[in-house]
C-alpha cells in the first residue's frame, strides 16, 4: 500500500515538473557567461576560473569541510576494534598490473592537476584519481605496504602544509580582490605557466584530497569486520 501511494506521488511530481519546468526541446534559454568569464580571468577552462577565482569563497569552505571530515572520521573510529591485517595471496598478474596502474595514476594525476586550467581537470579530480590508484594497489597487491607509505613518506606533514597554504592563498584572493593570481602577460598562451599560480593551487588541493581520501578509505578497510 505504501509503495502504491509513493508511486502515485512520484508520477504526479514527474508530470508537474515536465509541464512547468522543463524547457521546450531545442530552444536556447539562457546566456552562458563563458565570454564574460574569459574576458575577466583569461583562463581557458572557465569551470576552473569560476571555482578558483570568481567563487573562491565556496572552495575555501569546501577544503575546510573536507579536512574536518577526515579529522572527525579518524576521531570517531579511534576506539572501534580493528580487523586483523595479514598478507594477501593474490595472483602474480594482479600484483604486477596493480603496480603498473598505480604508476599510470600518478602520471594522470600530474597531468590533470598541472593542466587543469587548460584542459578538463582540476585539484579534486586529480586527488581522487591518485587515491583510487593507491587503494587499488592496496587491495590487489599488498595492503600492509600501502598502509606503510602514509608514514614512510610523511604524507600527514605535507597534507598539513598544503592545507595551510591553500587556505591562506584562497582567503587572500577572496578578501583582497585586487590580488592577481594570473600573469597579466602570460609567457606563452595555453602553456602550463600561463595559469600563473593556479597550477600550484590545483597541485596543493590535489595532494590534500588524495591524502584525505586515502586516510578515509584506509580507516574503513582496516575496520572491515569479517570480510
Amino acid at each position, binding site marked *: 500500500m*505504501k*509503495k502504491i501511494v*509513493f508511486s502515485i506521488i*512520484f508520477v504526479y*511530481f*514527474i508530470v508537474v*515538473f*515536465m509541464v512547468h519546468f*522543463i*524547457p521546450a*526541446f*531545442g530552444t*536556447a*534559454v*539562457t546566456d*552562458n*557567461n*563563458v*565570454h564574460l*568569464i*574569459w574576458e575577466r580571468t583569461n583562463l*581557458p*577552462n*572557465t*569551470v576552473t*576560473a*569560476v*571555482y578558483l577565482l570568481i*567563487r573562491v569563497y*565556496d*572552495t575555501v*569552505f*569546501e577544503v575546510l*569541510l*573536507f579536512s*574536518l*571530515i577526515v579529522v*572527525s*572520521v579518524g576521531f*570517531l*573510529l579511534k576506539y*572501534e*576494534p580493528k580487523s586483523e591485517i595479514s598478507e594477501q595471496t593474490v595472483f602474480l598478474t594482479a600484483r604486477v598490473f596493480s603496480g603498473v596502474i598505480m604508476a599510470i595514476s600518478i602520471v594522470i594525476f600530474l597531468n590533470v592537476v598541472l593542466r587543469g586550467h*587548460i*584542459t*578538463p581537470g582540476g585539484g*579534486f579530480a586529480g586527488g581522487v584519481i591518485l587515491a583510487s590508484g593507491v587503494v587499488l594497489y592496496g587491495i590487489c597487491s599488498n595492503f600492509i605496504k600501502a598502509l606503510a607509505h602514509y608514514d614512510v613518506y610523511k604524507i600527514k606533514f605535507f597534507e598539513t602544509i598544503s592545507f595551510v597554504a591553500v587556505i591562506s592563498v584562497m582567503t587572500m584572493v577572496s578578501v583582497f580582490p585586487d590580488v592577481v593570481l594570473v600573469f597579466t602577460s602570460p609567457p606563452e*598562451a595555453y602553456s602550463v605557466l600561463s595559469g600563473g599560480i593556479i597550477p600550484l593551487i590545483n597541485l596543493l588541493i590535489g595532494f590534500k584530497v588524495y591524502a584525505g581520501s586515502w586516510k*578515509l578509505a584506509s580507516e*574503513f578497510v582496516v*575496520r572491515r*569486520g569479517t570480510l
Partner: protein
Amino acid sequence: MISSIIILTAMVSFFIGIAGLFFNRNILKKVLSLAVVEISTVLFYTGISSVNGITAPIITSVDGYVITMANPIPQAVIITGIVIGFAVLSLLLVFTVMLHNRYHTLDVHTIERIFERETQ
C-alpha cells in the same frame, strides 16, 4: 533535447533513491540509497548546465567562444555538492560501523527493539 533527457533521468533516479531510503530496512542499503540521491542531484545540475549545448566550456583558441557551450557556473557550483555528499556518506558509514559493532546487526527494526529493551 539531451538536457531534458538528463533532467528526467535525474528526477527518476532521485525518486528511486528516496524510495530506497523509505522502504529498505538495512542501514547500509539506506546509506547507498542516499548516495543515489546525491548522485542524481549532481546529474540534475549537469542537465541544467547543458540547456544551451553540450560543448565543454573550455576556450581552445582566442576566438573560440561558441554559443552552444555548456554553462560553467552550475558545473563549478556542484563541486561543493559532490564534496559535501562525500563527507555526509563517510560520516554515515562511520555511524553504521559503530552501530554494527554495538548491536551486531544492521536491521533497523531489530536495533529499535534492542534499544527499547535496554532503555526500559
